[in-house]
């Protein structure tokens, strides 16, 4: 079946198994280019494993997938040139400074010295890290580490961004700036694939969502379409809880807490 819009990410039967544990159970993702895609799921649902498979950190046990119309198995380096990733563990060298981290990323992406310097300076300023650019990443706070990891993901101007929990631990000012930046990026034709537990942010930013539970994709599509599927005016949180079958009625009472 030919997709109506070009896809940034397309998977068919993507499956990842660790021993007896089926982390991702044959999911079919279709992430349109230029979309702001929120990938949601409870803890341990398989979100990070899926991202790791898509970014080449894990090899899928079975299934097919394409990133920006390229085969990541056949041409992993080519795909990586066009993709930016901020993974779960942030992927930073503790013993490089923030500026050196950006230099490293720029060099491996083949940026010339002038562009690398200009982009680094802009990104450091945007992330409010200019003063701390010479400090080792080991000395950064959690929020600063997140910001430099995001800066590293943005530096090569990728066409697709994978962001694993980008807003967790980031202050309100930086959070606003990053949201604006990502919105501009998507408006410019870029695609963002993000996971977040902060559903209000996903609701505000994303135009597409996919929901994964126990390794299975339980829903996927434009957020408006999913919202229209149920009672009018439902929040994303209500939709999400319904989809994963964790409505309020299921919460155990724990009567001993009131003793």
């Amino acid at each position, binding site marked *: 079946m030919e997709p109506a819009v070009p896809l940034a990410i397309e998977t068919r039967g993507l499956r990842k198994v*660790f*021993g007896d544990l089926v982390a991702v159970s044959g999911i079919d993702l279709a992430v349109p280019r230029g979309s702001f895609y929120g990938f949601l799921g409870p803890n341990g649902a398989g979100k990070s494993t899926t991202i*790791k498979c898509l*970014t*080449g*950190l*894990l*090899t899928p046990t079975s299934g097919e997938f394409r990133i920006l119309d390229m085969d990541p198995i056949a041409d992993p*380096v*080519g795909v*990586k*040139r066009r993709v930016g*990733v901020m*993974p*779960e*563990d*942030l*992927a*930073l*060298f*503790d*013993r*490089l*400074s923030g*500026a*050196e*981290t*950006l*230099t*490293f*990323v*720029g*060099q*491996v*992406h*083949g940026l010339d*010295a002038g562009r*690398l*310097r200009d982009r*680094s*300076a802009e990104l450091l300023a945007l992330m409010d890290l*200019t*003063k*701390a*650019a*010479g*400090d*080792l990443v*080991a*000395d950064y706070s959690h929020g600063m580490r997140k910001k430099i990891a995001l800066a*590293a993901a943005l530096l090569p101007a990728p066409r697709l961004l994978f962001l694993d929990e980008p807003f967790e631990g980031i202050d309100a000012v930086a959070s606003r700036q990053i949201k604006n930046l990502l919105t501009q990026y998507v408006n410019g034709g870029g695609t963002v694939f993000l996971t977040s537990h902060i559903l209000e942010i996903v609701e505000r930013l994303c135009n597409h969502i996919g929901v994964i539970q126990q390794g299975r994709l339980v829903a996927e599509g434009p957020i408006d379409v999913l919202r229209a599927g149920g009672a009018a005016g439902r929040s994303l949180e209500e939709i999400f809880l319904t989809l994963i079958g964790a409505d309020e009625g299921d919460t155990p009472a724990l009567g001993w807490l009131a003793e």
Partner: protein
Amino acid sequence: MIRNLRAFVWLRWRLLANSLRGGRKRDRLEEISRVLSMALPILLVAMAFGSLVGLVILGFAGGRALAAGTAPVPVTLLVLRGGLFVLILLLVGFSVTSPVQGSLTRYTRLLLLPISRRMLHGIEVAASLADPWIAFLAPGLLMFAVGLAVGGRSFAAVWAALAALAFLAVLATLAACVGFLVAWLLRDRRRSEWFALIFVVGMSSIGFLPMYFAEQSAAERREARRSGAPRSSTSVADIERAIPAWTVAVPSELFGRAVRAGLNGDGRTAGLAVAGLATEAMLLFAVSSTVHARLIGSTTVNTRRRQGAARRGTVRTVPGLSVAASAVALAQARTMFRSVRGRLVVFMSGPLLAVMVFLFRRFEDIDIFQRLGEYGYVLAAAGSAMAVLSAQPITMNLFGSDRAGLTLQLLSPVSDADLARGKIVGVGLVLLLAMALSLAAAVVVAPGGPVGLWLAGQLGAMSVYLILAPAAVWLSALFPVASDLNRTGSAGNPHGLAGLSSVVILAVGLAMTAGVFWLATSYFGQPGLTLAVMTLWLCVIAAIALPLVTFASRTITLRRENLALVAQGK
């Protein structure tokens, strides 16, 4: 109190036991890797159990023999005091390097518990009685007192038992005090790095002292023989006289005095010795309380950042490497040089050997140091070869010590061949620095000799590194271990099999290179030609090794998933 104490004893044991075990196994090779790396802890546990049983038997038999008069009191007590003194040193060493001290989040968690700080301190000190060294010693010491009692010396047995309890209290408070101090030092990144560096340099320097004093004593004896003085044998009384007066307050000496006084029926002296031990335990408890208060008062890791203008990363490339491989090489060199292990490679190898030669070359019977003192270029080459050997924790675990940095490299558009080349060149850059220092130290200690031979020796050391390079890539990819190059203990070591293989390869490489050097020097007899031969040797080795590095990089492709998990510390 008892409930809390039980929980803390359990916590210490679990932290220790869990530090020996890995996480979930991933694939068959990883399973084999885990089994191989578990062999050493299993061997240690088996030996430890044997030692415990041996100590219990030895304690009982020793006490009984002393009571029966079948063992000479002066010799037995000298051995006992010596053994206990060594144990005190081991205990301090263990408390410094214990994996239990590594957890920075531990005290934050403990402070959240519903236990007062004073109670927390008391429980932690008491729980240190469960530390392996103390747990090993306690039954042996108590059985020593039982042996005395069974042998009919009840008075001495009572004092021995009291002294044993007081001695164990000293050990527990000492272990706690050192443990708290180390944990406090580790709270701050820079402080902890300095501590690790000073600790390793200090321990290495202390390691020379027995050899130095033994050589000095041997030299004095030789001098005495030359001057015709009669030869005398060393008696227990001589050793007792040689023990410095200040050691009277050392816990092992106080324990020995209490036992000796008990055997002599001198209750007053025995009581004073036991009281001395008890006082020391109380003093150490008080000091440990202060250190503990400092420790828990600094639960936030406060690091001082570098002052001054922010340094921008400068774009540099390594000649002969692609831009991506250059970036990997420079990142490798920077991260290696900024780690404790990396700095030890640079600053310890050559300079340390030069200092040893400077100190020991005056002793006639240590031929090797005299020779190295005569031939500075050999000393420089040996120092550089030592740098290659001491870089083994890094070269044999090229990917495991990057941790999250490896994820960044795996996510970057870098081919596996470039990744391998960059890693090898990066370590090589730091080794060049170490070699330059080794050369400088050797020039200071043993100047002179043809310049050609000095340079040839350094080319030889670089050849040895290149001989190791393909195996380093291959074994690092096959057996990666999540390691921390800022730790001095086993947490910074490569996989045992990779480490062992590197020693064998380095020995072979060193022998081959030294053979070529020796042949060239003996055959041509001209330094310039030796330099030419060693240059040719380096070129031949590079021509073979570099394609092999590229070939070995295929293993990275096969082990990519495993490496990605190791990068997450799994």
